[in-house]
């Protein structure tokens, strides 16, 4: 087993035999800085939530998961053994609510990724229908990530059929996931999905699905379109607020979290997991 990539909160290993291992750590990043204090079980909670969604979406599209049990003991519970895919160079984003860069693009153009939207929308408004707003990690000449159009997706993946499938699958998964979460009092404002092609050329869902690292989660009972300062993140707002209260300048290294902040943050990750899945976290 060898590490082939290390992120702030997740790592990637290549296993003997060629399978890949996606490992979620307990690290928390705030304002893009990984804090020095772990949140116990965060990696297990996000891995369990992602695995739960993969199972629920298995009738929609094949996925890259081989097993969450057949993993090295040291990573038990926090890792997924996956099939390597030829990853497509597009981040497939579905939005059910208007915020962030999408809001800015809307305010400038009245449209997001070429999709025209009704007039008069404000930050965090629910959209009439979810929209597909793909992007790429390749930076533009201006140095910023920008949304790309559907035609750009066709060019990036080299096939209009695959591009069309990406759009339909992304919106289908988002609609299903958002509906389930909403029943449980959680708004999934938007989400990012990644796909690849397996050895047979079959479009396959990869990475993680509908976790708080790849989506925006808001509490339904706190949702307030147009709220000054924006919506509050369901699970990370507590640690964000605390980190700002310390006077931290949001640069490396971040402050160490006291025990009560760790406990409160962990409790929110558990709450999100239990609300969405309807299961009790017993780890």
């Amino acid at each position, binding site marked *: 087993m060898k590490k*082939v990539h*290390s992120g702030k*909160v997740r790592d*990637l290993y290549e296993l003997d035999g060629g399978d890949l291992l996606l490992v979620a750590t307990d690290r928390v*990043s705030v304002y893009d800085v990984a804090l020095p204090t772990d949140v116990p079980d965060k990696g297990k909670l996000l891995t369990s939530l992602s695995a739960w969604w993969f199972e629920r979406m298995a009738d929609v599209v094949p996925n890259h998961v081989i097993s969450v049990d057949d993993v090295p003991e040291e990573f038990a519970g926090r890792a997924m053994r996956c099939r390597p895919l030829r990853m497509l160079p597009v981040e497939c984003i579905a939005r059910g609510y208007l915020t*962030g860069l999408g809001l800015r693009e809307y305010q400038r153009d009245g449209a997001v990724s070429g999709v025209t939207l009704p007039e008069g929308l404000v930050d965090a408004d629910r959209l009439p229908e979810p929209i597909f707003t793909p992007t790429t990690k390749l930076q533009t000449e201006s140095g910023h990530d920008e949304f790309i159009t559907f035609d750009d997706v066709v060019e990036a993946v080299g096939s209009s059929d695959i591009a069309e499938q990406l759009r339909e699958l992304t919106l289908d998964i988002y609609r299903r996931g958002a509906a389930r979460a909403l029943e449980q009092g959680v708004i999934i404002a938007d989400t990012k999905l990644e796909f690849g092609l397996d050895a047979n050329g079959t479009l396959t869902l990869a990475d993680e699905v509908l976790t708080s690292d790849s989506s925006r989660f808001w509490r339904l009972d706190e949702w307030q379109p147009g709220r000054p300062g*924006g919506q509050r*993140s369901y699970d990370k707002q507590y640690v964000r607020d605390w980190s700002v209260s310390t006077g931290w300048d949001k640069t490396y290294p971040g402050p160490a979290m006291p025990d009560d902040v760790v406990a409160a943050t962990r409790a929110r990750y558990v709450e999100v997991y239990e609300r969405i899945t309807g299961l009790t976290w017993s780890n």
Partner: protein
Amino acid sequence: MSNSDDNTYDPVHLTHEVFRLLLDKGLPVTRDGDFDAAVDGASAILRWLGLEPEIPAQVAGYRRLDYNGQLGYNRRIHGD
């Protein structure tokens, strides 16, 4: 991995080989530092040696996934 036909070599593989080499020499090496910086360094060494650093395509595709958590997602997708 290495490919003698087109003079390429996997810089990730090279970092692991260097780790094992130094370990065998009894040096107190760890892998606690910046892994991606190490891979960048290995790539530079390969280029200096006239080889082209190349990570296997299937792994390279996964390396471009977002491994940085919610704030990285927010920054890239939402610009905040």
